[in-house]
């Protein structure tokens, strides 16, 4: 009896060592066909098609298959529209109104996730050789919400544009006012709107509404431009779709609050694809005699 057990054990040992040898050899056999570097492929967040990462990036995150414009980080947006060599403005601003529980922690995480220091980055630079002041919001920073620093930067940028006789371009994407800063964030709507009001008496202001532009940002500077552009399919509106559905007890059409819907309603001037954005902006600046 014990003999047969020993025999069995011996067989198992042999089998296992053979298996180990086999596993060691495995990579050698299969290494070539699966040698795809990490991050080589990505998936379109809209249609789910597998895309070559490098091509997707150089197409500014527009899916070649379905045309979906993915949300951009502020830095990528700047790469899209600005000439090289722009200057980032208002970087030394002190954070205030941080009392809300866990807010500081949230801010730290947002900084890490977006690589930005706030929900808007302001720059002084050129678009196809034409001087412009540009502000770019980043939805990866706390959903692009507008707190006191964001409001202050928009006001400062508008005041700088007025003083230096430069056009102002703002790319908006935001869930609205930053709730953690309470009523202070609400009043940033008034602050940004009055600064835009003074600028608009003298200079050109173009806003580009990108996905999503809602709440307090749509109900302030985003909707006050001389020319309002939008990216394809961007969600633009004041109240959230769910809130409206609960209020009116109806299901809203699928394209409700889309850029195309708003073009139809006369809310935006034009829908511009990402690949055409830079040349569209520089054309509009040129038509207003900026150089």
């Amino acid at each position, binding site marked *: 009896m014990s003999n047969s057990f020993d025999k069995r054990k011996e067989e198992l040992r042999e089998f296992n060592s053979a298996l180990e040898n086999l596993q060691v050899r495995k990579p050698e056999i299969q290494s070539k066909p699966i040698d795809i570097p990490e991050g080589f492929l990505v998936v379109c967040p809209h249609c789910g098609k597998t895309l070559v990462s490098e091509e997707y990036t150089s197409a500014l995150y527009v899916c070649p298959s379905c045309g979906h414009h993915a949300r951009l980080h502020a830095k990528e947006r700047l790469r899209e529209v600005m000439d090289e060599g722009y200057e980032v403005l208002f970087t030394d601003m002190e954070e205030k109104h941080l009392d809300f529980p866990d807010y500081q922690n949230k801010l730290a995480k947002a900084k890490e996730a977006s690589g930005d220091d706030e929900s808007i980055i302001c720059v002084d630079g050129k678009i196809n050789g034409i001087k412009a002041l540009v502000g770019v919001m980043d939805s990866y920073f706390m959903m692009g919400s507008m707190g006191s620093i964001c409001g202050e930067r928009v006001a400062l940028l508008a005041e700088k544009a007025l003083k230096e006789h430069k056009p102002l371009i703002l790319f908006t994407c935001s869930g609205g006012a930053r709730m953690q800063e*309470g*009523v202070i964030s609400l009043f940033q709507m008034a602050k940004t709107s*009055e600064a835009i009001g003074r600028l608009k008496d003298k200079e050109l202001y173009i806003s580009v509404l990108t996905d999503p532009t809602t709440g307090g940002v749509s109900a302030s500077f985003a909707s006050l431009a001389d020319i309002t552009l939008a990216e394809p399919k961007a969600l633009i509106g004041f*109240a959230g779709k769910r809130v409206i559905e609960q209020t009116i007890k109806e299901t809203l059409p699928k394209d409700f609050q889309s850029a195309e819907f708003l073009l139809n309603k006369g809310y935006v001037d034009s829908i511009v694809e990402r690949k055409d954005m830079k040349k569209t902006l520089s054309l509009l600046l040129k038509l207003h005699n900026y150089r």
Partner: protein
Amino acid sequence: MILEENEMKIEALEQELLTLNPTDEAYEEKKKELKQLKLDTYSNLTPWDRVCIARSDKRIKARTLISHLFTEFYELHGDQYYADDAAIISGLGYLGDIPVTVLAQAKGSDTAEKIKRNFGMTSPEGFRKTLRLAKEAEKFHRPIICIVDTSGAYPGKGAEERGQARAIAENLMEFSKLKTPVISIVLSEGGSGGALALTVSDYIYMFENAVYSVLSPEGFSSILFKGAIKPEEAVNYMKMTSHDLKNYGIVDEIIKEPLGGLRYVSLEYASNLKEILIKKVEELSSTDETTLLENRYQKYRCIGQ
């Protein structure tokens, strides 16, 4: 909850007093008891208590305040484009002997009026009505008095289709540039952008028990706390009372209310309030235009710095 219970007790006592003869011994006792109960109830209000008082059906609404503050009030309707929004009462009248333009967010007092006024939720037409009348006031250098009381701008399908966001934004921008004095009075509820659209002014009064916030306590508790704490507790983080807004430097002056909140306006109270407003209007009207506009600009420019 304590507020609600105490208010029921107060009401019962008041009813009881009515049945008693003022010469009875019990009358004086009950009167004392009532006074003490009112004092206990209303001298230590929590932020949530104030939210309840501000939203109370018993609290006066804009229509009543207008009738007490202004004489010969003449209502003007419509945005001249699309419709008349009954959530806004607007028109001309006299404050003392000064002609003024009044723009007020109006909630209803009874069910029929509430429905007519869409529960005080302003539509784009309402904001546009206030703006066109503000421009008319500017033409005659007539002071503008805004009365704020709304849970927020109306979140409706048509409101979105007709540009709710832009209607609010345009008010914010245009009111900051009006070449005539503007005063805002926050009567009860200052809800979000809808309230802000009538709060860009030279001087902001806020009634003691009024509240003002970026969104409702209910929204706040569900969005920021994922429902983990109740709206009653969420308000403690919201800094939305008149004292909070005064501390922030947003509100210029708090208007004291009678004990128990603004449920009726006595002649004396109305005349005091009128007096205060007339003084302020006269002061602002004598300020030269450039200073007036620069001060208004700086008032909002500083918030959050």
